[in-house]
């Protein structure tokens, strides 16, 4: 049986959402792995870019932060933050953003600010960074999550980044003209959002994961009636991930060393 890490499975599952011509907003970690995998495996004409302003870098080594020097080399353009965010929202472009979060709700709204009271939090996180911005402006957002009940919650402690807001048409009514939560990729499976209600539902469970495990790990009810088992990564896909995307195994290996579920 092929051995692979959560990060590798998640990166490949998310990478499949990217189409040729998409402009992909990448963060660090799995998101970086997914964006690069997408470009090298599924959508060679996609363009990867970063909120820091680096557009389409060669990415011969994997960056450890969005301001890593590795996002500035071999690029089409090195610009700044204003330019980068104006790309995210550009009406001419189809932009897909990869984000991570500490909490998510059923409408794909995200919390990356704090757990507990905002003014006296139990845990303070980094804050919005560009997440609130790309959630407002991108054509679609794919969120990476660790699938745990305390992270998939009925009510966010702080709503940093808007997904489908309160469901239905509520995002548009806020004044946000496009975008919304496209998918959630977790260490257990893939979830999408109902076309009308905008509620999260399960589309795929990863090999070796049960639907029950996912339901138990989700803090709100989810529809699982359309879920199917995901395909395992192919040896070819894993080879590209490990040898081309992350040759130093900074993101693949970190998790490979941990026990497989």
């Amino acid at each position, binding site marked *: 049986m092929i051995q692979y890490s959560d990060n590798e499975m998640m990166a490949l599952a998310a990478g499949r959402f990217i189409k040729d011509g998409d402009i992909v907003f990448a963060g*660090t*970690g799995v998101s970086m792995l997914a964006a690069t995998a997408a470009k090298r495996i599924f959508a060679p004409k996609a363009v990867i870019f970063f*909120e*820091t*302003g*680096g557009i389409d870098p060669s990415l*011969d*080594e994997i*960056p*450890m*932060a*969005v*301001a*890593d*020097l*590795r*996002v*500035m*080399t071999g690029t089409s353009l*090195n*610009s*700044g*933050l*204003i330019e980068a*965010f104006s790309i995210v*929202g550009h009406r001419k472009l189809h932009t897909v953003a990869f984000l991570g979060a500490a909490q998510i709700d059923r409408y794909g709204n995200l919390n990356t*600010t*704090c757990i507990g009271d*905002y*003014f*006296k*939090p*139990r*845990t*303070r*996180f*980094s*804050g*919005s*960074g*560009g*997440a*609130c*911005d790309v959630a*407002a*402006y991108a054509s679609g957002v794919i969120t990476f999550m660790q699938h745990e009940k305390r992270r998939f919650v009925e009510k966010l402690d*702080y*709503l*940093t*980044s*808007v997904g489908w*807001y309160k469901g239905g048409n509520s*995002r548009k009514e*806020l*004044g*946000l*003209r496009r975008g919304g939560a496209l998918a959630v990729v977790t260490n257990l499976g893939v979830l999408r959002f109902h076309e009308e209600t905008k509620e999260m539902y399960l589309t795929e469970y990863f090999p070796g994961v049960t639907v029950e495990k996912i339901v138990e790990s989700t803090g709100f009810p989810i529809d699982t009636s359309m879920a199917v088992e995901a395909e395992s990564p192919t040896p070819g896909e894993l080879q590209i991930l490990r040898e081309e995307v992350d040759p*130093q195994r*900074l993101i693949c290996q970190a998790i490979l060393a941990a026990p497989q579920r």
Partner: protein
Amino acid sequence: MNRYPEIADRLMGLDEAVSRFVKDGCQLAIGGFTITRNPMAVAYEIVRQRVKDIHLVCHSHGQALDVLIGAGCVRRLEIAYGGNGRYAPTCVRFKKAVQRSEIEFEDYSNYQMSLRFLAGALGMPFLPTKSGLGSDLMNYEGFSPDIRKEAKVASRKYAMMDNPFSEERDEVVLLPALTPDVTILHAQYVGDDGTVRIKGLTFADIEQAKAADTVIITCEDIVPSSFIRMDPDQNSLPPFFVDAIVKAPYGAHPTACYGFYDYDPKHLNLYRKVAEDDALFKGYLDEWVYGVNSWEDYLAKVGMEMILKIKANPVIGYAPGLDRK
């Protein structure tokens, strides 16, 4: 006749730049982004001079932010993001300061903060955006009405308005301009005419500098104006926006500087470890800040072995193959 006689007045050491321009209670903006081009030499000097009650205004920041907060220099913070990428997903001393209610803070997003600097740079009172609609960024204000009366603090966190050019209802968020007392930046080059050239990504550095009353630039080197004026398309700031110029090679260490050196993974890992513990962190400051007499002393402590390891390949821009775990 020397066409550029002014620069001599503005060339100074770190100690003078900080003591003249970075006052207790000042509003301060920092260039760079998370682990890159932080003006660390100036940040350490601010700590060494024990400047107090700083009001920091940041988009997405990392190392300099965390050192300044950890050393107790910061009273008030407007911020989008405090993190060091994989080396500290949330900056540790920032996290502790918020959790312990040691600082007054207010959250914005990265684009929002960038737009606020842009507004300041363009002399505009505000800029409009859609970002923030529906977010708790619009529901929680960190500053009290009393703080809002101070000169450099926005009188409101934001304002809402209906787009007057749209037939339909179209709400936008108006963000107040930022005009910091001081902006500190680290650049690769300053010409001997005072022109600044930043290589690689510029983040919001240029907007932060133009928005400020006073600008301190540290640089890897000072180069002839004949070089810097041979391709002016590449330059970042004209001399008249710059108030203090400090030559500080490796002035961004342990963060990276495109074309010159990579970030220092060993120092960033060490920092995260000590930041988690109050006593260890005090020891870090004693050793790396209070205990060194000059920037040259600091670099000597970093050591030649690491300086050579992080040295950037000048064509590739970073240090290929560097052990970054």
